[in-house]
């Protein structure tokens, strides 16, 4: 998990589109993961991720695990550049609108101490 500066996450006025954009995010290149002795190499990532909510609502809730997510199914698209300086490797994805994903949702969540189970 990486902290995001305030400017890194923006929403459209109607709240249905979210854009997450960051540069020089420190990551690791670990080709042999999940081997226990898998070596790592420092790498960096720039990316732009756009979520667009659909009109299909979703609600996931588990009182035993104390969480509730309410929102909408979404479409998400990503463009990114990955750099592994030590091996002089760079990979750049095609533009944002050429990507697609299998699962995306956006909404709000409450969990843990903020969660109140539904009154039966």
């Amino acid at each position: 998990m990486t902290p995001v500066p305030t400017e890194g996450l923006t929403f459209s006025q109607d709240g249905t589109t979210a854009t997450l954009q960051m540069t020089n995010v420190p990551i690791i290149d670990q080709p042999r993961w999940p081997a226990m002795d898998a070596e790592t190499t420092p790498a960096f990532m720039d990316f732009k991720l756009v979520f667009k909510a659909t009109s299909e609502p979703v609600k996931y809730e588990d009182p035993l695990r104390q969480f509730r997510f309410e929102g909408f199914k979404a479409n998400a698209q990503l463009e990114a550049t990955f750099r592994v300086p030590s091996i002089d490797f760079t990979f750049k994805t095609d533009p944002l609108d050429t990507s697609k994903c299998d699962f995306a949702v956006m909404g709000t969540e409450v969990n843990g101490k903020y969660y109140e189970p539904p009154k039966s």
Partner: protein
Amino acid sequence: MRFTLDPNPTKDTLVDQHHNQRSSHLDRRHLLKLGVASVLATALPGRPLRAESAPESCAPPIPKNHGVSNGGSCPYPIPWLDKNGNHNQSPAPNVDLSNIFHFKGKLARCNGFHGMGTDNKGNRFAWGNPTTDYSYMAGEYWAAREAHQGIFTHT
């Protein structure tokens, strides 16, 4: 996140499940694979397009003069994932999509990206796999016995 470059886009690539509990299969003969995972680094912030000073570390402060200690301000992990050494699970319906426990706020999550790209030698590759997984969590979380505001991403 696992980010897999596949020189043969027509081939199914079953890849490892980063930070979740499913089985994995790695086919190294057919993959040119750049596996990248986010550094678990609340102390190693990414930089925005418009530069901003780095957030302070969330490590627990060392009390002076026998003062009280309420722990650090790092977000608390999801307990039943953390006990197995995981920090998140693959997003799907009816699973907790957050990486943070004691959280309320905006959240979005996605996985299973597919696309194409080019390396610095001009080679074209398909990218993405079931665990190419991104999220944001923006809101309030509880740590060190007080509420904090923050925005985080899992990449």
